[in-house]
C-alpha cells in the first residue's frame, strides 16, 4: 500500500485539531489588549460621565463637578477645520496620482506623501508653531487644525489614489466617448464611483487624528473656556486628558478617565460608521 509509511490518520486529525485550537487561542490573545483597555477605561470613566460632565465647562481646582464641553466642542472644531485644511489638497493630489501613474510630479508627490507620513507628530507640531503660532502671536484653533491637517494629508492622498485606481478604465472611456470633457468625467463619473472609498479614507484619517495630543501641545494648546474663534487657543479631548491626568488632583484624574471614555466612544463610533459606509455605498461595477 502506498500510504503505509504516512503517519496514522488519527494522528493527522489530532494535529489538525491542535493547530485549530492554537490559532483560536492566539487570535483571542491578540484581542486582549483592546479588551483590557476598553474594560479599564469603562470601569474608571463610566462613573464620571453624566449630563453635567458632557455639557458644562471645567470648574476651578477644589470645586466639585465641572465638565469637558469645551474639549468636546474643541475636538469637533479641530476635526472640521483640519478637514477644511486637508481635504481639498489631499483629494486633488490623490486624483492626480491615480490619473498620472508616471511622470516627475507623480513621483515627487508620492515620495513626499510617504515621507510626510513618517514624520513624528511632535515635529509637525513644532513646525506649525513656527509657521502659524509665531506669526499670529497666539496659540490657536487654526494652528492646531493645520498641524492635524498635515497629519491627515497622507492618509487622504493614499486612500483616494488607491480607490480611484480601482475604478475600471472603461467607465472613463464610456464618459469620454459621450463627448464629456476630461475634468467633468473625473468629477462626475470617476469620483462618484469611488466615493465610498474616499469617504472611508476621510473617516480613517479623522479617527487617526482625533486622539492626537503631541501636535496640539504647541498649536491648539488647550483652553479651559469655550472657544470657537479660529485665532484663539482651543481645548481638545486628548489635550484635556493630558492636562487632567498629569495634575495632582484626584477629581481631575476622574475627569481624565471620563474624557478618555468619551474619546474612545467617538473613535469607535467613527470606525463603525466607516464600516457601514464601505458596506452600504459600495458601488457594484
Amino acid at each position: 500500500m502506498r500510504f503505509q509509511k504516512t503517519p496514522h490518520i488519527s494522528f493527522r486529525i489530532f494535529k489538525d485539531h491542535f493547530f485549530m485550537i492554537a490559532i483560536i487561542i492566539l487570535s483571542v490573545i491578540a484581542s486582549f489588549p483592546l479588551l483590557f483597555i476598553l474594560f479599564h477605561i469603562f470601569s474608571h470613566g463610566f462613573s464620571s460621565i453624566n449630563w453635567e460632565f458632557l455639557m458644562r465647562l471645567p470648574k476651578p481646582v477644589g470645586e466639585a463637578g465641572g465638565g469637558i464641553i469645551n474639549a468636546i466642542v474643541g475636538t469637533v472644531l479641530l476635526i472640521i477645520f483640519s478637514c477644511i485644511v486637508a481635504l481639498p489638497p489631499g483629494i486633488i493630489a490623490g486624483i492626480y496620482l491615480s490619473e498620472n501613474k508616471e511622470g516627475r510630479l507623480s513621483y515627487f508627490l508620492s515620495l513626499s506623501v510617504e515621507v510626510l507620513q513618517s514624520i513624528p507628530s511632535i515635529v509637525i507640531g513644532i513646525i506649525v508653531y513656527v509657521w502659524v503660532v509665531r506669526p499670529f502671536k497666539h496659540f490657536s484653533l487654526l494652528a492646531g487644525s493645520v498641524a492635524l491637517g498635515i497629519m491627515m494629508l497622507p492618509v487622504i492622498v493614499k486612500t483616494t489614489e488607491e480607490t480611484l485606481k480601482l475604478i475600471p478604465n472603461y467607465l472613463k472611456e464610456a464618459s469620454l466617448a459621450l463627448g464629456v470633457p476630461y475634468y467633468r468625467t473625473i468629477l462626475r463619473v470617476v469620483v462618484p464611483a469611488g466615493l465610498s472609498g474616499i469617504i472611508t479614507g476621510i473617516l480613517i484619517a479623522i479617527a487617526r487624528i482625533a486622539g492626537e495630543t503631541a501636535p496640539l501641545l504647541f498649536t491648539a494648546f488647550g483652553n479651559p473656556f469655550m472657544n470657537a474663534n479660529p485665532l484663539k487657543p482651543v481645548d481638545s479631548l486628548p489635550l484635556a486628558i493630558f492636562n487632567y491626568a498629569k495634575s495632582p488632583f484626584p477629581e481631575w484624574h476622574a475627569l481624565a478617565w471620563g474624557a478618555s471614555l468619551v474619546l474612545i466612544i467617538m473613535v469607535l463610533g467613527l470606525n463603525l460608521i466607516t464600516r457601514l459606509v464601505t458596506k452600504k455605498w459600495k458601488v457594484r461595477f
Partner: protein
Amino acid sequence: MESTVLKINEFGAAFGDHVVLNNINLSITHNNITAIMGPSGCGKTTLIRCINRMHELEPGARVWGKIYLLEEDIYAMHPIILRRKIGMVFQKPNPFPTMSIYDNTIAGFKLNGIKLPRAERDGIVEESLRKAALWNEVKDNLHRKGTFLSGGQQQRLCIARALAMDPDILLLDEPTSALDPKSTSHIEELLVELKKIETILLVTHNIAQAGRVSDYTAFLYVGELVEFGQTQKLFTVPEDTRTEEYLSGKFG
C-alpha cells in the same frame, strides 16, 4: 447612389514605432451596417477608436491620413464635439454604476451639463430605450441602477445611451463578445432594426455575425484592408485569396 456618412482616406495609425494600420480606404454609407472583421490583433479596435479619436488617450499613438464625418475633417474638429456626434458601444457593457437606468440613458446630456425640460428628457429616455428594444423590460424600473440588469440588457442600455445623443454614426466594438447566444441574437436583431434610422459600423471577429447582419463588410488583416464590398458578394465570391481563407476558417 447612397450618401456617404464616413469616409476614411489613406489612413494609418501607429503606437510608437509599431505600425498597426496602414493605407486604409473605406466609405461608410447612410443607413447601412458595415462590418469590420478580421483576426485578433489586426487593428479593428484601433480603427474604430481612431474614428472618435479615443486613441488620443493612449500615449504614443499617432495617425496619418484623413477621416471625414459628413464631409468634415474629424481631425480638424474638437474631439469633444466629434464624440458627441459619434455613438460608441464597447466590448464590455459599461453602464455607469452610480446611475439609474433613466440617468444612464440620458447620461450624454447629464454629464455634459445640458439642461433639458423634464418632459423632453422623459421623451428622449423613452424613445432611446424603445429604439434599443429595452423599454418594455425596464419601463417599470427606470430608477433602479443600470448595473442590476443582465449583461445583454446592460449592452442594450449602452446602445440606448449612445442613441440618445442622436449620433451621425454608431460604432460598436464587438458588442456581443461578452454575451450569451440568446442576448447576442437579440442584439443582432436590434441592429438590423436600427439601421432604418442609424448608420452602423460594427467590429466583429465573428464571421457568421458579419454575414448575418451587415450590408457591407471590410476584411482587415494585419493592419491592411484586404477587401471591402457588399457582404453578399464578399462572402460568396471573395476577390482576395486571404479573404477566402479567412472565411473558410483557415486562420483567425
